[in-house]
């Protein structure tokens, strides 16, 4: 989580989440990012359904796109893609 974290006096009691999980960006956890080769993609959307983080969206044009703010780099999309159009690329 980015930014200054609140101290115990500021935090809400009852271990209540003071931020939505959408603000909790887990994209910096992994070591690899998926790279989609859209020339091979058949728009089957399986990567969208398999992504355990819900980080793969379906665009207007039917192609999928990875939201790197949340992608943990698990590689399930690359593993499940029936035409092997997703490759995992090591982060720089």
């Amino acid at each position, binding site marked *: 989580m980015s930014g200054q*974290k609140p101290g115990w006096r500021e935090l809400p*009691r*009852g271990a209540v989440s003071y931020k939505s999980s959408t603000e909790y960006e887990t994209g910096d956890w992994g070591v690899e990012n998926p790279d989609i080769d859209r020339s091979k993609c058949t728009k089957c959307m399986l990567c969208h359904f398999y992504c355990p983080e819900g980080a793969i969206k379906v665009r207007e044009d039917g192609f999928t796109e990875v939201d790197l703010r949340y992608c943990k780099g698990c590689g399930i999309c690359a593993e499940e893609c029936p035409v092997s159009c997703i490759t995992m690329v090591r982060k720089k």
Partner: protein
Amino acid sequence: MYYDGEEEMMQKQILMGMNGDEAVAYATKQVNPDVVAAYPITPQTIIVERFSEYVADGLVDTEFVAVESEHSALSNCIGAAAAGARAFTATAANGLALMWEMTYIAASLRLPIVMAIVNRALSGPINIHNDHSDSMGARDSGWIQIYCENSQEVYDACIAAWRMGEHPDVQLPVMVCLDGFTLSHTMENVLTIPDEEVREFIGERKFITVRGHMGETEFRLNPEIPLTMGPLDLQDFYFEHKLQQVEAMRLALKAIPEVDAEYAKISGRRYGMLHPYRMEDAEVAIIGMGSTMGTVMHMVDELRAEGVKAGMIKMRVFRPFPTEELIDIIGDVPVVGVLDKAASFGAPGGPLYEEIKTTFYDEAKRPLVADFIYGLGGRDASPTLIKGVYKSLEEISSKGEVAEKVSYVGVRG
């Protein structure tokens, strides 16, 4: 007892014959909580049986949930309390042991549940009688713990506990502990307050305000303004949340006497964290918890008549531990014996002994302290046994040292 109320106040109260279990059930009937969840079979006591009769007879508005285990009973109360309900449950011994993980969750989610614990020995071997091994094991779970001497105290604590736990500075669950059989199954006279006065004292549950992910809201689950309570809380937040619990207990030290003072106004019975008896000029004193302290008080009078300067302190509130008040009350008393009704295997002594020794370590003026572990598995704590403890304390006094730091009294050698 500690009556300091008006005659008129007493006249409004009805004297009832009740055992400790019934005193819990009756007080809870008057409180009329929203939810009672309980596992109805052994080691459960008469408490929820009697309360379920109130439900069946339409005398309360409570949703009674007969669950399949104590783990579920407390889980159910946690859910209900998170949704804003007043939730109550009762258990004993192994039932509390089965609740274990949920006791920590109730406290860390800051849910002011009230739970009656009928103190019974933990198996094994199988034993259903009284000692404090069950609730002493739960002393670090983050609950306020009140230990009662008699059924009157049980009744009063089961009303006042709601206000203590729900105090805005506190927001913690409360265990009201009563000795199995000695209190739970023994008929006593209990003065009861009229229903409407209990209702007025208890009022509606008030909620603190928290800042959730949707903004400021009452601390209760509400689909309009959703809250997430107690999700994954790792190295970066858990420690802060534990500190909040430490702080809540510290503030409870102030809040509990406030509630006790208010309760005295409607009951005429004024309770404290600690109850000293003939301590002012005492040369030997006993400190302990629960029903045994009635026997100790009797023995203090008997010994005083014989010329022994005996005193005693009954510890009513064990969590939060009233350290400063204890130092104050013990004052100049040179020899203190601790009665522990639980053993901590491999520890330097019983749980109460350890805390009392810790309390005095930094004090320039400190008494000689000896631990007496007694009554395990319901072994009788007779007046003779208590007299023997005072005799040991007098020996310590004359020798000026504690030869045996921890003794086990009432056990066959």
